[in-house]
């Protein structure tokens, strides 16, 4: 905001009948144009025309005043001078400005009492101070969008070295004039009201963007009758960046939160498994004793039955040959009680009981190995190919004659794991597939089981695949749940896959995934080769 702007602002305010003096002075100091008020003063002075400005206000302006003013830097000069008007000294706020041709000076003088001027000046200095110290950009443009004035924040932010460098630059060079921005500017150009709080994107000399919130209002320039537009722009770049940063941070937080939830779920699941393990151990222990004696007693009872049957058969031989009439009674009692059926049925009852006990024993064994999982076993280097071969041998009874087994062994180095548990995983996966294949009713499909091992830099892989009926969409999400089984009642504990999953995922930090393929199910185990290192890191 130059001195001229201030002067024109003051001139535009009501001044209680005091009149402004204007004159144009040429380089020789001659007044060659004056307003009415000035003309009156000149007439009153009785001085000859063309009037010398120096003589009109002798004592106030030096003789070389016009030359000095025309050579001095800066366009405007504002000062307070005492001018003798009608023989009286009157304080004037004087503005001297060079015309564009640099050959003449426009002189304006506002008569004021001293106090008013000082007050105005104070306000101006405040305003000027605010104007230049404001962190907001204030850019004054003319109707052709050329910058006529700019505050310090403005030229600095836009990358100009000085006020001077910025003046004359077109707004189109420093602003990205989108259709929307143009719309706002046009509104300001044509309308009477200021347009406030619209978004504007500026581009500084370094090519960096500045996001701002702008208001634009117009102001009439008294001299030259120009319409000027004041753009007041608040730099929002940092806020926008902060906001973007916040969004980024929020996203990261959300991600972190997600990870935390997963970890929590995993811990929860591990806790549940541990609790289940304890429960299983306790249950197994408590069931063992009664199951033990029931098992023994059933065997004893079968033996007793057998003895009794032997005895009855001996008696029957007797009553066939005996003349004793009481023997007929015994014979009819034999028939009435249907002893033949009774012994046969007792045999069947015992067999079923024994089968039931065998099943309970199986479940108990599963529960026990389940509960035992975290205990013994130390990390050892283990050959998974060997493990698969051994396990196939152990499970042979389950699959021989009925299932073709294809074994594909990759070149696999030994890796650190809990060997007994890995055996358990292999066995459970094999038995799971064998059981699925038992349900394969399609006679055109030869029941087949594929076992494959391989290894890369990070993982050892085991794939167990079958052409059984596969897993239905409804049940696939539950296959690793404890006690979930699709096997017919009594043939499975529903702990096999749970146990395998727990061993692979929780104990070995690996993955066990179910992957359907066109003809059945496949399970893929990935075990990290650097298990020990991981544990040490933890």
């Amino acid at each position: 905001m130059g001195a001229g702007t201030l002067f024109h602002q003051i001139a535009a305010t009501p001044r209680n009948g005091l009149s402004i003096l204007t004159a144009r002075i040429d380089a020789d100091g001659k007044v060659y144009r004056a307003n009415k008020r000035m003309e009156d003063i000149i007439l009153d002075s009785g001085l000859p025309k063309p009037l010398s400005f120096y003589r009109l206000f002798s004592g106030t302006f030096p003789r070389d005043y016009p030359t000095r003013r025309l050579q001095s830097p800066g366009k405007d000069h504002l000062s307070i001078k005492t001018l003798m008007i009608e023989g009286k000294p009157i304080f004037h706020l004087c503005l001297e400005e060079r015309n564009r041709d640099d050959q003449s000076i426009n002189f304006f003088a506002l008569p004021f009492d001293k106090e008013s001027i000082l007050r105005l000046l104070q306000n101006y200095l405040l305003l000027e101070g605010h104007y230049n110290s404001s962190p907001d950009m204030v850019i004054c443009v003319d109707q052709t969008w050329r910058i006529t004035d700019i505050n310090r924040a403005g030229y600095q932010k836009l990358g100009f070295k000085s006020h001077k460098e910025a003046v004359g630059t077109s707004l189109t060079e420093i602003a990205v004039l989108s259709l929307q921005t143009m719309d706002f500017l046009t509104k300001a150009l044509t309308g009477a009201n200021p347009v406030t709080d619209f978004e504007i994107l500026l581009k500084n000399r370094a090519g960096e963007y500045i996001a701002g919130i702008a208001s634009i209002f117009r102001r009439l320039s008294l001299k030259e009758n120009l319409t000027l537009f004041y753009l007041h722009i608040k730099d929002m770049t940092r806020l926008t960046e902060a906001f973007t940063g916040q969004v980024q941070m929020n996203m990261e937080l959300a991600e972190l939160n997600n990870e935390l939830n997963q970890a929590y779920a995993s811990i929860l699941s591990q806790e549940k498994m541990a609790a289940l393990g304890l429960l299983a151990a306790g249950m197994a222990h408590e069931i063992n004793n009664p199951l033990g004696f029931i098992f023994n007693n059933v065997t004893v009872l079968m033996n007793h039955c057998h003895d009794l049957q032997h005895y009855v058969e001996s008696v029957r031989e007797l009553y066939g040959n005996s003349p004793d009439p009481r023997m007929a009674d015994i014979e009819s009692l034999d028939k009435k009680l249907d002893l033949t059926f009774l012994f046969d049925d007792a045999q069947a009852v015992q067999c079923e009981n024994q089968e039931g006990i065998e099943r309970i024993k199986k479940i108990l064994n599963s529960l026990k190995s389940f509960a035992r999982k975290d205990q013994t076993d130390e990390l050892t280097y283990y050959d998974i190919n060997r493990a698969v071969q051994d396990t196939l041998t152990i499970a042979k009874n389950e699959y021989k004659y009925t299932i073709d087994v294809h074994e594909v062994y990759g070149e696999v180095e030994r890796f650190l794991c809990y060997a007994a548990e890995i055996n358990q995983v292999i066995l459970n996966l094999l038995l799971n597939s064998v059981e699925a294949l038992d349900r394969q009713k399609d006679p055109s499909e030869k029941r087949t089981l594929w076992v494959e091992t391989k290894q890369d830099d990070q993982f050892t892989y085991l794939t167990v695949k079958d052409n059984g009926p596969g897993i239905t969409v409804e049940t696939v999400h539950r296959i690793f749940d404890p006690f979930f089984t699709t096997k017919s009642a009594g043939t499975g504990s529903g702990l096999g896959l749970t146990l395998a999953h727990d061993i692979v995922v929780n104990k070995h930090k690996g993955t066990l995934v179910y992957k359907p393929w066109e003809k059945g199910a496949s399970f893929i185990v990935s075990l990290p080769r650097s298990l020990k290192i991981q544990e040490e890191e933890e």
Partner: protein
Amino acid sequence: MINVFFVDDEERVLNSFKRLLQLSRNSYRFHFFLSGKEALASPVEPVVLITDAKMPEMDGYELIRRMKARFPSLVTVMLTGMVDPENPEHTDCDHHLEKPCDIQDILSLLPGKD
């Protein structure tokens, strides 16, 4: 005659084994006790001791320790609901059987007749 001590605090377990062993027509002489204390009080010298692990007052490990001290050549068999690897004493016994166990499993562990 080989004397075999069988110790379990649960009478039904003991009874069921008693019946089974009587049926199995073996040549061992079994002595059944409901506690370690009873077994230690017996005047008979056992060749084999089969004991339950978890018992009130004196557990199977303690019983084995005391009996071994008295009869160093004693063959010991521990019956447990579950192997407890935290307890190192289970290594003190010669054989280990998990319940529920088969009578044949037990008989197969017994030394032959001399």
